[in-house]
């Protein structure tokens, strides 16, 4: 089966600053693919290249077996939905209008929705559980509700791939889980390939089929979470001591940060005695 996304030797730079350097990976269809890495490692830039907002300076990006530059804008928007990290604030529209914007790439020249488009919008709203908010304005909603509205918009776009840039940022844990569970529901019920950026490595480990670790614009490691998440690698990338053990939920890797850099003498003892995730350190990536 063809890869949903295939990136080879991708290079991107803002003027003289190199942001992505020879990044290669591929995303299998119907997978959840999570990109992790420290601030400034190029995650958001990579997402924008995948969304077709930036074009690669070198290398290639294939979407569903066809080079991304070969798609007309509207055709690409029917394949890929993109939910940016920081949506524009101060939107004058109602929730239902915003969800309906997801139909835009499917509409004709004058952008007039048919009854079918309204129905799809309503289905998308019930999918992400925002139907009761349909007549509300965006600025009346909480952060978690807003994020679910943007997810509904992406679902309404009826894409094969959804790109989410830090969908759980600034949400409380309940809303984080709700967004992540919705993402998983999209993957399973609608067979949508999900690519997301996350700062929360534990959430990433829980939901990802494949993780990509970016560091200084390079793809350091790509594979299943239990292979990618070793404490040596994470410490080297993030530059801070970490504890990696197994979560009681299904034995997935669990990352804990260790406080007390300036105060706590016992920290060294904790770190020296840390549980090593058996046998995975030397696995090549």
């Amino acid at each position, binding site marked *: 089966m063809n890869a949903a996304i295939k990136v080879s030797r991708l290079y991107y730079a803002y003027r003289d600053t190199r942001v992505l350097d020879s990044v290669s990976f591929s995303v299998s269809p119907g997978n959840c693919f999570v990109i992790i890495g420290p601030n400034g490692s190029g995650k958001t830039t990579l997402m924008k290249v995948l969304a077709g907002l930036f074009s690669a300076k070198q290398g290639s990006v294939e979407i569903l077996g066809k080079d991304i530059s070969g798609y007309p804008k509207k055709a690409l928007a029917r394949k890929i939905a993109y939910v940016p990290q920081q949506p524009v604030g101060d939107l004058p529209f109602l929730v239902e209008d915003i969800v309906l914007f997801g139909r835009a790439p499917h509409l004709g020249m004058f952008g*007039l*929705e048919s009854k079918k488009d309204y129905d799809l919008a309503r289905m998308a709203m019930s999918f992400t559980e925002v139907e009761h908010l349909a007549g509300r304005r965006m600025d009346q909603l909480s952060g978690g509700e807003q994020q679910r509205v943007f997810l509904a918009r992406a679902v309404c776009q009826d894409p094969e791939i959804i790109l989410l840039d830090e969908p759980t940022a600034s949400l409380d844990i309940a809303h984080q889980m709700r967004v992540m569970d919705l993402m998983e529901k999209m993957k399973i019920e609608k067979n949508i390939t999900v690519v997301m950026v996350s700062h929360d490595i534990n959430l990433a480990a829980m939901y990802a089929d494949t993780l990509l670790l970016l560091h200084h614009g390079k793809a350091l490691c790509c594979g299943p979470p239990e292979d990618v998440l070793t404490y040596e690698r994470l410490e080297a990338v993030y530059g801070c001591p970490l504890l990696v053990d197994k979560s009681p939920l299904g034995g997935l890797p669990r990352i804990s940060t260790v406080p007390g850099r300036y105060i706590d003498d016992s920290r060294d003892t904790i770190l020296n005695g840390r549980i090593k995730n058996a046998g995975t350190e030397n696995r090549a990536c």
Partner: protein
Amino acid sequence: MIRQRRVVTDMPDILKRIFAVSAILSFVLFVSAILGMSMGSSNRGWGPFFSAVLDPGHTDPTLSVIIWQIRFPRVILAALVGATLSLAGLVFQALLRNPLAEPYILGISGGAAIGAIIGILAGLSRFPGVGLLAFAGGMGTLFLVLSIASGNAISKRETLLLSGVMVNAFCSAVIMLLISISMNTKLHSIMFWLMGDLASADTGQAFYLALMVIPCFVLIFALSHKMNILLMGSEMARSLGVNVSVVTMLLLCVSSFMVSVTVCQCGLIAFVGLVIPHLLRLALGPDHRVLVPASILGGGAYLIICDLLARIVPQQGEMPAGVITAMIGAPVFIFLLKRSRT
């Protein structure tokens, strides 16, 4: 609370809304046009007016001439100019995400006026010579203002407005300079024209103007859904398949073009593009597919009424319609500015 979308016929809701709003505002426009044609300095009441309109054979020929050759083209011109200015205001407000943007405030009208005066002084014909120079002037000032304010144009609305006001002040100075160094004997008529005068109307000119602005209206309506999406931010718009740079440039050019040709015809009429889109947005919400036809019809009706006031308020003679629109528009602008700060 869920807004119910009941399907009465198979017609999509959005089309129903567009038709309903257009029907109501068409009626308003029609009533304004009747008022504009029936009233004036030689007011003879409704009876003679209707008999002149409905039964042209049996009436006072003077009244018939007044109605059909003086007032009718004037009403048509006012409708076209009002529609153009209000629609242009709507477009600029959407593209610049600034509720105070308007062709006059952005200096486009002033730039177009400079171009037009140069053309008139050079003795060019109104179309295409003067028209093209006005268009060049309008586009020139638009890009000057945008480049002065660039970088923070979108985030800082005050920068954009200040740049516009300054460019506008400069344009006014250039216009005065041009008028004072020219030996043109028609000084009074140029000054009158500058204040926004619809008295020059004849049916042929109104027809030419219609020929140029109506295709612009259609094009802008075709892009109205994309204007909605642009309000979501340019990255979001691009990821929804909108070619943002092409759509933006097209809208800026088309709007500047239609404003420039109306400036050629009737000078500087300020603030129509501020008052009407704002009122309509309050009443109808943010959807540009509804707001575009509404601004066209509402702007037309508004300028017909303003021109009517300009004709009947003075005891003797009349004043330019631009005086009325500025007297209404400037306070509205200040009100909006105060409100947008809080």
